[in-house]
């Protein structure tokens, strides 16, 4: 007997809009927050989540059910988010270049303002510092950390999404934690020197 996910997939493959709505209702929160975990900007996360669902609707016929529907959706979310990040980085590099050759005054990088820590909310500032540190991690460590710490995915789910073993996930998270500690230690040490 086919389960509800199989029925939903079959309806989606026939272009059923009602089934698509059910899918969006079911996954939009997690997709949005997965994108937000990488992009840290509501508007960018919403735009990327829209792109994710449009891609799902367009390419559901190529979904072969070798993994679960959820895993497939989160993979698309991660790929789209990383693509968006790369596009943004390219844009930033261009903005820096343009500024260097003096054509335009750009806002290339959002700096971490730590000049007056007392004027700012400490918590917000720490979150910002943490995000910047996560951005410095290698791609696979960043994906594992974002899925585990921001989104609360279990090791098993992360293994499915990243298509690696559970022990590989554990190792990635362990290395990510060590690297984060190192990055943050260096950051705060520098701050104390200043």
């Amino acid at each position, binding site marked *: 007997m086919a389960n509800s996910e199989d029925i939903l997939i079959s309806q989606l493959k026939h272009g059923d809009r009602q089934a698509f*709505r059910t899918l*969006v209702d079911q996954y939009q929160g997690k997709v949005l927050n997965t994108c937000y975990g990488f992009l840290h900007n509501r508007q960018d996360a919403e735009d990327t989540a829209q792109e994710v669902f*449009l891609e799902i609707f367009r390419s559901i016929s190529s979904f072969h059910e070798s993994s679960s529907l959820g895993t497939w959706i989160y993979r698309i979310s991660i790929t789209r988010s990383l693509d968006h990040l790369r596009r943004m980085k390219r844009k930033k590099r261009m903005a820096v270049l343009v500024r260097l050759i003096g054509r335009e005054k750009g806002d290339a990088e959002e700096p971490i303002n730590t000049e007056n820590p007392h004027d700012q909310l400490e918590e917000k500032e*720490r979150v910002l510092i943490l995000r910047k540190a996560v951005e410095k991690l290698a791609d696979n460590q960043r994906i594992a950390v974002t899925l585990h*710490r*921001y989104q609360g995915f279990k090791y098993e789910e992360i293994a499915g999404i990243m298509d690696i073993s559970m022990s590989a996930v554990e190792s990635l998270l362990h290395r990510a934690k060590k690297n984060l500690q190192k990055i943050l230690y260096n950051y*705060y040490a520098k701050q104390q020197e200043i």
Partner: protein
Amino acid sequence: MRKQKHQIQEAVEKTIACFDHMEKLKPNPFFFTRLEASLDAQQKPTGRLKGALQSAWVIAFILINIVSIIVLSSDKAESGTTRADYLQEIATDLTINQPYIDPFEQEN
């Protein structure tokens, strides 16, 4: 020095603990409406675009034919008059159509 190291370590731990109170986004209530509009917009233009392209091709084909006919016929008419004018000009320059005067002929 040791105190400084301890302070840094404390800051690192506090920062890593921020993972637990990360902001979670609530989905926008108009998320699906916007998504549906994008789907419709993506599906509609293909039909419209096809029709527009087909009529554009027909119009371009007719226009090319009309322009070719006009250009060719005007070329023919123009080349007829200019050729005659050109011959006349050459004849005038070479004084072919003027009465011949022999410079050695003695006057009576």
